[in-house]
């Protein structure tokens, strides 16, 4: 208990750090993942190859290596002196985007072919088919896998703490450096993460229930 009370401001900063890096990189992953999924189902071959290469590379690279790339290679290409928060969120977002892409793609694929055919045969345009028939159904299928993906993202954000970001792993490290017993520190960090992941799964369950529809 003392560990938490004595170091509450640092713990609070760590907690907020984890929440904010999770939020920012979730947004990046979602946007990028949907774009890449669009590439992967598009009728244009080069974009499809690009999407496949992106997913294969990102999924088979350890996230820690991706962090290394973003902290040592990307600043050389873009501009030096980017903040660790931005670099960390980008690394996490890029990594997770490949998983989001696969979830979205399989969501689109689960919509029965007949639905789109029926939509076309009553004279809907491509955009209408997508907007009115396919996407609403795909979105519902995608919600449960997205929930696990974002929970995994929260857990992966711990690695950002090892790359000079203020978040919960950083706090764990700091406390053990200060000589506190690791067991209570571990328990507090665990509670911190559990709060975040339970919130995410709760939100997604709410979302799922709201969008529920009989098929």
């Amino acid at each position, binding site marked *: 208990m003392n560990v938490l009370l004595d170091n509450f401001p640092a713990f609070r900063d760590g907690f907020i750090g984890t929440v904010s890096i999770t939020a920012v990189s979730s947004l990046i992953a979602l946007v990028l993942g949907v774009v890449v999924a669009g590439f992967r189902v598009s009728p244009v071959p080069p974009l499809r190859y690009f999407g496949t290469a992106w997913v294969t590379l990102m999924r088979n690279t350890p996230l820690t290596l991706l962090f290394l790339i973003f902290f040592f290679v990307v600043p050389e290409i873009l501009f030096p002196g980017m903040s660790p928060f931005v670099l960390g969120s980008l690394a996490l977002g890029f990594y997770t985007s490949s998983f989001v892409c696969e979830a979205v793609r399989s969501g689109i694929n689960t919509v029965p072919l007949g639905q789109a055919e029926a939509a076309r045969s009553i004279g809907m345009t491509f955009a209408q088919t997508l907007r009115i028939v396919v996407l609403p159904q795909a979105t519902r299928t995608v919600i449960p896998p997205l929930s696990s993906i974002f929970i995994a993202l929260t857990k992966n954000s*711990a690695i950002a703490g090892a790359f000079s970001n203020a978040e919960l792993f950083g706090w764990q490290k700091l406390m*053990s450096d200060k000589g506190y017993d690791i067991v209570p520190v571990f328990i507090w960090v665990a509670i911190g993460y559990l709060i975040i992941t339970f919130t995410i799964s709760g939100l997604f369950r709410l979302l799922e229930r709201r969008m529920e529809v009989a098929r």
Partner: protein
Amino acid sequence: MSASVLYDAPGPKAVVRNRIYAVVGSLAIVALIVVSLVRLSDKGHLAPEMWDIFNYAGIRQNIADAVLATLKAFGLAAVGSLVLGVLLAVGRLSDHRPVRWVATTFIELFRSLPLLITIYAIWVGFLTDHSMWALAAGLSVYNGCVQAEVLRAGINSVPKGQSEAAYALGMSKTQVMTTVLMPQAVRSMLPTIISQLVVTLKDTSLGFIILYPELLQTARLIASNTQVNGQYPYVSTIAVIGTIYITMCLLLSALATWIEKRGRRAKTGIKVAPGAQTAGIPTVDAAGPDAGGAGGAGPVDGGAGGAGVSKD
């Protein structure tokens, strides 16, 4: 993607339009790559000296040692996680309520915590001088929990008649589990189990944070200790190490896909899980407190199917 829901077989107009998109798209992608390469070469990262460092026997030896260290930790973690996975799966399906509770709590807790937190706590708290064992233990605990859920889903997917028949023959519960259910569960879940091993292999890179001299740690040491032309060869080192990692993971994923294809040929009536598609994100709903009972098999199957199944 001939049978995509999104578009018809293109007509003449659409074919022309697609060609234009193809050209514009490829140009954009090529431009992106070229700009990156030009920027890197401006900073001197593509100079031959930067890549020459891999001709030194010392550095090659370093990398070889690191691959060996990575594989050692991976081997230990693979064995550890599978053993723990079997134990936890059996525990979760136990007839004794306390055993079931302990196993469930253990699985839910360690599955919803970041692996890094667990590894670091084990390292600082118990195995400060043995970073390899700390890494292997952390990986075993986390992946054991995931493997347990995979195995449980596999056991639940064995038709009920099988265990009923075995009980009718007078087998004990242990016999039913070891000779009837477990072999079939492992067989049907082998692709998923191997995909999870890919995740384990990738996660050995977390050893970097507890200073275990595995591949990534070695890469960082090489890059920060060898100065070439007044620059640190991060780009070349990361390119080489990244290639090694991706090759190792792809080989393992290929094994999973191959086993999945073989499994589909057999006519056992038990569905073989999709392989190699799920690498990276644990497919199980990490913080699902209500993932018990019959629905418990759902998250594993649903997750794997949702996040992974590709139909191209």
